[in-house]
């Protein structure tokens, strides 16, 4: 079993490397950029779904965590990582390996700091509920933004330029898979039931001996960690960061993906992330009316499918099979 | 006092709460001037019936006719305007408003100042306690006073039909008695009453007729005095 798993992982990694080699060469750069952004948005949406969808809390500060991760990892690679490349290369032999080690450590550092921030935000969530928690997280996100705006070492209002462009398709897909797998396993574990119980009925969960506080903070920390990773990938892809990318509108965009995908559906979040990354691009056809259309589509979707496109359901090959099986039974 | 014409007629009413089939095709009627009581256990569908008459719930099928008119598709406030008001379960008074303001809200849809004044006096004669508390915030009233306020508030719209949902809930026996006396008096002044009660004994003593509701169906219907002596009813609802 263990052996099979390892083979599977190696196969997946190999596949990712192959994709990473071929896709950028065959695809036009515009589509490639959309692909990268889809990957990053999937990480953001799935990680927010853990907080909003699965534990039923309401955070609108996800962009704040993303900003922390992005700026931290960029700070690391910009000031230290770059200078470490030559010396690390002499140990690890290959420059690409050295860069990868630095990049991954930068991302993890960014994620960890974001997770720490998640811990700090998670603590007030013990006392706040619903709308109040939403406002607090909104405030938190904005404070982060204003603070970064006032730090000169990361460019302040000018933006943070010349970040090394370490992000490639491999890393985006890799971390996307990690996020999805980790959060999926978390939900399907006994912990997962605890998360869901917090969403369904906090008092009842408490009465059953579930430490609801612990799970709420836990969700914030894990969610923030992956948002931080997404921020790092984002910064090292654009090679430039500006606080304008992390306004509360950015948080809202992620929430839209979570809600429309269906709160509590990972596959729903993934599909919604894809749709809502591509949709604005499609709407370029209507030029000036683009954002007006976008907001109208949003309103109409909410009015017609308030439970999200997928509701609580997970979408998988199994569901397709089930549909067919059911049809056959009906036919009989 | 009781006339032979039906004030309210309910015909094969089906109501769902989400997936739960709460009322399974019930039919009954209330004559002008009557006190009719619905008795039954928790979850039998008593409050559902009352809330459907008031328009808070929409029936899936069936008809509710009040006087000559169908009311089952009307919004709650229209139904109040037509002359049906409710004193809901749990009283639902407005705690941050004064007693007087609560009563004034009861007369929200009326324009006749004289009539409102008369009805206010009527409520105060019925429940003198409320007059003493007139400026007080309703949230500070005792449970019994809140029940009086809830009923008084419902009377302020000068209804033809008064719906009472569990008026004795959570009250001390002595208070229950005075509430039921008030119900009798309201009826004698000419208001038709539909009374939903868990306290079947008290309800059947003042009612003219009664219906027994079990899991969404009417299983018995009779004059209240007969129901009081019915062995089945005795065993199930009157404590043997």
């Amino acid at each position, binding site marked *: 079993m263990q052996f099979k798993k390892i083979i599977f992982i190696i196969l997946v990694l190999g596949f990712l490397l192959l994709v990473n080699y071929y896709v950028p060469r065959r695809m036009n750069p515009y589509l490639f950029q959309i692909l990268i952004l889809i990957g990053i948005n999937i990480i953001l949406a799935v990680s927010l779904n853990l907080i*909003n969808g699965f534990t039923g809390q*309401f955070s609108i500060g996800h962009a704040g965590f993303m900003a922390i991760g992005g700026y931290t990892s960029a700070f690391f690679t910009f000031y230290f990582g770059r200078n470490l490349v030559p010396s690390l290369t002499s140990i690890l032999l290959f420059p690409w390996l050295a860069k990868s080690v630095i990049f991954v450590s930068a991302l993890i550092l960014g994620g960890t700091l974001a997770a720490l921030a998640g811990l700090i935000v998670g603590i*007030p969530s013990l*006392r*706040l*509920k*619903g*709308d*109040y928690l*939403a*406002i*607090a997280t*909104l*405030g*938190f996100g*904005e*404070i982060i933004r*204003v*603070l970064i*705006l*006032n730090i000169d070492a990361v460019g302040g*209002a000018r933006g943070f330029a010349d970040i090394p462009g370490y992000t490639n398709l491999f890393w985006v897909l890799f971390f996307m898979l990690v996020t999805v797998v980790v959060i999926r396993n978390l939900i399907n574990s006994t912990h997962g039931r605890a998360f869901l119980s917090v969403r369904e009925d906090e008092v009842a969960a408490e009465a059953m001996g579930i430490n609801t506080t612990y799970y709420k903070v836990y969700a914030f920390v894990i969610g923030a960690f992956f948002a931080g990773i997404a921020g790092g990938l984002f910064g090292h892809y654009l090679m430039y960061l500006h606080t304008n990318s992390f306004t509360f509108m950015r948080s*809202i965009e992620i*929430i*839209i993906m979570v*809600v429309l995908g269906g709160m509590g559906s990972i596959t729903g979040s993934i599909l919604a992330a894809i749709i809502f990354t591509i949709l604005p691009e499609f709407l370029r056809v209507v030029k*000036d009316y683009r*954002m*007006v259309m*976008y*907001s*109208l589509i*949003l*309103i109409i979707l*909410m*009015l017609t499918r*308030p*439970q999200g496109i997928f509701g609580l359901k997970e979408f998988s090959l199994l569901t397709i099979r089930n549909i067919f099986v059911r049809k056959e039974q009906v036919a009989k | 006092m009781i006339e032979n014409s039906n004030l309210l007629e309910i015909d094969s009413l089906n109501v769902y709460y989400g997936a739960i089939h709460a009322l399974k095709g019930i039919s009954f009627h209330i004559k002008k001037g009557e006190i009719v009581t619905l008795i039954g256990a928790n979850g039998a569908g008593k409050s559902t019936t009352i809330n459907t008459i*008031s*328009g*808070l719930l929409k029936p899936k099928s069936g008809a509710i006719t009040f006087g000559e008119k169908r009311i089952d598709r009307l*919004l*709650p*406030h229209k139904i109040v305007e037509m002359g049906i*008001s*409710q004193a*809901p379960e749990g009283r*639902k008074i*407005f*705690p*941050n*408003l004064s007693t007087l303001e609560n009563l*004034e*809200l*009861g007369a*929200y*849809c009326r324009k006749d100042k004289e009539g409102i004044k008369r009805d206010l006096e009527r409520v105060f004669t019925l429940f003198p306690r409320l007059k003493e508390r007139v400026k007080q915030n309703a*949230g500070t009233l005792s449970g019994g006073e809140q029940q009086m306020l809830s009923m008084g508030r*419902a009377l302020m*719209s000068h209804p033809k039909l008064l719906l009472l949902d569990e008026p004795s809930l959570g009250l001390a026996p002595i208070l229950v008695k005075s509430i039921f006396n008030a119900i009798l008096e309201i009826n004698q002044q000419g208001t038709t009453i539909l009374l939903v009660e868990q306290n079947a004994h008290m309800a059947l003593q003042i009612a003219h007729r009664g219906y027994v509701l079990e899991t969404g169906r009417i299983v018995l219907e009779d004059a209240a005095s007969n129901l009081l002596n019915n062995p089945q009813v005795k065993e199930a609802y009157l404590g043997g």
Partner: protein
Amino acid sequence: MINGIAWGSIYALIALGYTMVYGVLRLINFAHGDVYMVGAFAGFYAVKWLGLAQEPTIFGAVAVFLLSMGCCGILGFVIERGAYKPLRKAPRLTALITAIGVSLFLENAGQLIFGADPKFFPQIIAKKDVISSGGIILTNQQVIVLGVSLLLMVSLQLFVLKTKTGKAMRAVSFNREAASLMGISVDRIISITFVLGSALAAAAAILVALTNPKIEPLMGIMPGIKAFVAAVLGGIGNIPGAMLGGMIMGIAEVMVVGYLSSTYRDAIAFAILILILLFKPSGLLGGFTGEKA
């Protein structure tokens, strides 16, 4: 300081709209800041249409106020009926996302219709110093800002406390079902609440435009958020609370700009917000008691 009070009363006016709507619907109406923006533009076009830019008159100024408030009242009505009413029974998050959608729609439609570039609101009341003694300078514009907003707030308070509709509003905000059993048309009360809140936002917009004439389609975002914070600060759902919260907010901001740096101006709102939420989540004057989970 006077500047702070002036800004504070503006925030208070906008905050009232948030608080009232939250009271009856339990909805954070994200589009409220954008209604404020539309108010400014409605005023701008009203000035043009009435030809007031050349010769300002008192009557003209009053007319601009009323026209703009009317426009926004209608807009508030349309938003509520079109976007929120179908969602009465939906989960609150759904309504919230819809509100955000409406907000985005107004901002972007605004950029299309009014143009993305800032416009300058003509001076409909010429600036004059009324009092200037002991270092305190009070312009007639500041007097108007304070006077008008005070007038509006007092009339709103009287409306809510004394009139039948006002009482119905309080009943609806406590318990919608019980209110409907009183014969109150809940939909009508909710609409009235939106109309009133939107009209107040429009008034706030015109008052701001008197002293800060630059108007643009995205101008509603920041004041909107800050007014919302003010509403939370005073205890959301609580009308005097919104007024107090607005005042504190305005004064705190002006102080921060004066003693620290203007780049922190926007952060102060959120810092206040988080402190309040941590230590007194129900707001300074407490919320309503009717909240159910």
